[in-house]
């Protein structure tokens, strides 16, 4: 779900960056306010690497296997560090694997990062119920990732389809949007379930990794 270079007009790329800068600034501002950033930088960096690696896990979905996006889980674990983490992850993917692109970094960061922040707030919302429950962690883990992927897919598809040079006619465009979006529904469930399992696992093994209110 990364938009490569060359496909979007310069104005959209610029808009992507224009939206990325304030969100990144807001995140960094929150991080600075949240205490000694020195303490959290190693944590966020290593977890960024860990997410990058975790997305290499093959999830078998017969007849093929998929890789997960994990931006919902990333929001749940990293909180305000999620956006910078995604920015860095996307940068590495673009530079190392030519996956995504440099001009589209801003757009992709919005596609991935904005939903990640949202999932952080969704998961945190679960804390108003009972903090010490596997069910709450699982349910809100699921919801967070489910919504994050849903939102990511929506932004991705709309940005991509509406910016094809030459343009589609209206019916093709609508059909393309629906097809692409529907094709991602199974992914929403898989990501949701995966995140739910991981949230329960973390609650048991290392609860410090789950964001607290």
């Amino acid at each position, binding site marked *: 779900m990364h938009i*490569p*270079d*060359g*496909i*979007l*007009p*310069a104005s959209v790329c610029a808009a992507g960056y224009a939206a990325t800068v304030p969100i990144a600034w807001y995140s*960094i501002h929150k*991080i600075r306010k949240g205490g000694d950033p*020195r303490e959290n*930088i*190693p*944590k*966020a*960096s*290593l*977890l*960024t*690497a*860990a997410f*990058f*690696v*975790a997305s290499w*896990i093959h*999830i*078998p*979905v*017969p007849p093929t*296997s998929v890789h997960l996006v*994990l931006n919902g*889980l990333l929001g749940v*674990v990293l909180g305000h560090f999620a956006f*910078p983490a995604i*920015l*860095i*992850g996307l*940068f*590495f993917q*673009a*530079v190392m694997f*030519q996956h995504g*692109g*440099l*001009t589209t970094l801003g757009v992709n960061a919005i596609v991935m990062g904005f939903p990640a922040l949202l999932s952080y707030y969704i998961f945190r919302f679960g804390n108003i119920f009972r903090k010490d429950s596997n069910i709450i962690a699982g349910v809100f883990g699921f919801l967070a990732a489910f919504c994050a992927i849903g939102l990511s897919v929506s932004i991705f598809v709309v940005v991509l389809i509406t910016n094809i*040079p*030459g*343009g*589609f006619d209206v019916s*093709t465009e609508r059909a*393309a949007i629906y097809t692409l979006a529907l094709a991602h529904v199974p992914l929403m469930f898989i990501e949701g*379930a*995966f995140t739910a*399992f*991981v949230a329960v*696992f*973390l609650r048991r*093994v*290392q609860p*410090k*990794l789950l964001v607290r209110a």
Partner: protein
Amino acid sequence: MRFGFDEYIHLGSPLHRWDPRYKLIGLLALIFAFSFVSDLRMLPAMVVVTSAAYIISKLPVSFMLTRLRYPSFFLLAVVLLLPFLSGETIVMSIGPLDLRQEGLVAVLLIATRFLSILTIGLVLFSTAPFLTTIKAMRALHLPAILTDMALLTFRYLQEIGDYLHRMETSMRLRGFGERRFSIQGFRILAWLGGSILVRSYERSEWVYKAMILRGYGQAESLKGEFQASYTDVFALGATLLIAAGFVAGDILI
């Protein structure tokens, strides 16, 4: 795991010698100018500039081809779909499919822009050690939180990649077949992912201690890391002019 972009940093081309800060600004400007181009007539110039940069950089062609492996799927999809789906003017009909002019133009535009930007990106990041490039970003006043995170992430990426590899090996040894899907198997993969996170987190606590002990966040003495010569500045000027040329050309034509 090998990422292999420090493979060609010793070729010693003029692009290798260019001050990383100026190279970063210049080539990024060029990349954005390319993405601005929307007129077919600018494409030949784009190909010429891109080829020239790649030739000057002395990077082997084989390197570029290996780097194209992943994105070529995307390119293929564009080439196969767009000419039939996008636009109104039908050039030709192949059975039930209509080949459309707008779609063809779009394919040409997208493919050229895509390949040119990718190539310049390769030149930018393969003609200096990756670390130097990140330090150059810090010297250009990117927030320290971002550059520090990038450096640390880079350092531990391979290491954590090895965790995954070894853990998958041990799971396979105990008979875990990843090809069949089951809820239980899915949950175990989630545990695998969770373990990666936990191990990384626990390591990060020690890394933090090690950083504090060696004075992380004390005096930052990065000044004087890079020194630019007149040639560097001149090269930047020239590149910026070329980039401006593309933007102006696209607007004027």
